[in-house]
């Protein structure tokens, strides 16, 4: 039975059986490192219902399974394109890069490989844009790039996006996705959590709206920093959102996890997000929310 087909199903039922990040990739969250999942053939297999979906259909639905409504992961550029008003997107800091503070063997090469594979310099893309005519700063993370783990470049680009929103006094809209910390950057990676959270506190103090859209998967240090600090927090259906990886929790507690654990629907039930919005209704939802804020408090 297609799980996402009917809107009046209860949310937890919708998610039951949706595979976790690990199950989809057969590795733990931190490990989902590096393989770009860019489709090479004519079709992809839906991770939820198992049906074969043709790329031309995925293109039409913005990577939502036509059978069950499962949301495939979306690239950052596609996300920005779907969200911003046509012709208003102005990407900045595209070439901002991080370093190699541990001199970690193979890291620099791996990053180069990801750059070639994705066409991005790093795992977050930041832009000035209009959404429904409202000026904002828009950012999207890309799980194709080292599972959108947060190292210096991701932290710095997020903070510069927040600073731009602050100086222009326009809302900051961020689509999160992340496997967690960029392990290869060690403590420099951890410090990005403090830096990013600090940037949000400045938005708060100035009354600049900060809207977060959680997408699959958002975990670890990104969850424990800027992803959970939105004035308004939306999520895509079925997105995995949590702090600790499922396997770590199972090992620590020696219990098996309840169905739908760490799904967007679980977070809604527990009170940590405002609404679940399907991908193809997100732009409209953002426009309505931005209207309430009339751009920004004068």
């Amino acid at each position, binding site marked *: 039975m297609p799980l996402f087909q009917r809107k009046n199903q209860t949310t937890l039922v919708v998610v039951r059986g949706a595979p976790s990040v690990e199950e989809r990739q057969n590795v733990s969250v931190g490990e989902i490192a590096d393989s770009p999942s860019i489709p090479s053939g004519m079709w992809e297999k839906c991770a939820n219902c198992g049906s074969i979906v043709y790329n031309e259909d995925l293109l039409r639905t913005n990577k939502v399974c036509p059978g069950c409504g499962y949301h495939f992961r979306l690239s950052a550029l596609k996300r920005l394109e779907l969200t911003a008003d046509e012709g208003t997107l102005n990407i900045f800091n595209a070439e901002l890069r991080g370093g190699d503070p541990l001199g970690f063997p193979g890291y620099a090469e791996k990053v180069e490989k990801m750059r070639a594979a994705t066409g991005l310099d790093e795992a977050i893309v930041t832009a000035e844009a209009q959404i429904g005519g409202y000026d904002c700063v828009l950012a999207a993370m890309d799980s194709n790039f080292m599972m959108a783990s947060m190292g210096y470049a991701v932290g710095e680009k997020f903070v510069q996006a927040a600073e731009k929103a602050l100086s222009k006094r326009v809302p900051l809209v961020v689509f999160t996705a992340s496997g967690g*910390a960029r392990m290869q950057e*060690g*403590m420099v990676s951890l410090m990005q*959590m403090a830096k990013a959270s*600090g940037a949000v506190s400045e938005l708060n103090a100035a009354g600049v709206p900060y809207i977060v859209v959680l997408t699959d998967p958002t975990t670890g240090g990104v969850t424990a920093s800027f992803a*959970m*600090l939105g004035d308004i927090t939306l999520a895509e259906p079925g997105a995995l959102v949590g*702090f600790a990886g499922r396997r770590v929790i199972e090992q620590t507690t020696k219990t098996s996890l309840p169905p739908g654990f760490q799904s967007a629907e679980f977070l809604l039930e*527990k*009170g940590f997000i405002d609404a679940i919005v399907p991908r193809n209704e997100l732009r409209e939802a953002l426009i309505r929310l931005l209207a309430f804020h009339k751009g920004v408090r004068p």
Partner: protein
Amino acid sequence: MSAWDRVLAARDPKRPTAKYYIDQAFDGFFELHGDRLFADDPAIVGGLAWLNGVAVTVIGQEKGVTPREKTLRRFGSPNPEGYRKALRLMEQAEKFNRPVINLVDTQGAYCGVGAEERGQGRAIADNLMRMMALRVPTITVILGEGGSGGALALAVSDRVAILENAVYSILSPEGFASILWKDASRAQEAAETMKLTAGELKALGVVDAVIMEPGGDAKNNPQAAAEAVKAYIAKELETLGKLSVEELVQARRAKFRAMGR
């Protein structure tokens, strides 16, 4: 000492824990319990105390000493309610203009079903955000293990010091080796790579100071270690006390803003 030796020293069950430092370096500790939302988390101990005659709020991650206590305190790995208790006490300190002293000793935030249900990520994020803007002086001392975001949630401070043999890392060396090399048995090699020792962290600018452990290891002379921690806190409180609130918060923001540059 190799990095791995320090990992072992930091984890040594004989190493003095936060409660020992609270009792030795401070006077008249009055423990305050609970987050006012869900529960009291025994992994975090907090309350009021005197330091050289100055009223402070002191908060520590406590691993426990006896086996029974260790279990009760989940070896110092806090649940969301622990971080929320800490935040409640820090905001109370701000209200009454008391400095905040945080003592870090944890493998990391607790990984459990309840922790996720109650928003571990949100709890940590809230602490990071609020600590960055706290309008009183804040000092963190890393006593033993500084495990990732679970440690950072008490360490967005004006001064972050680390004991000579303590470690502070993105995750455990075992976890690092397991994720990056698919081989947890390479933990020693990971420890040497991760820049998790006091000296390396100071060089990276992640910590502001290294507090030497008299006798080469805090477990050999805990009393002297507590004195060294007390002396550091007293000296830095004096320095920070000379700044205006605006200067204080500005300097803190600037310090973290520059991390990794």
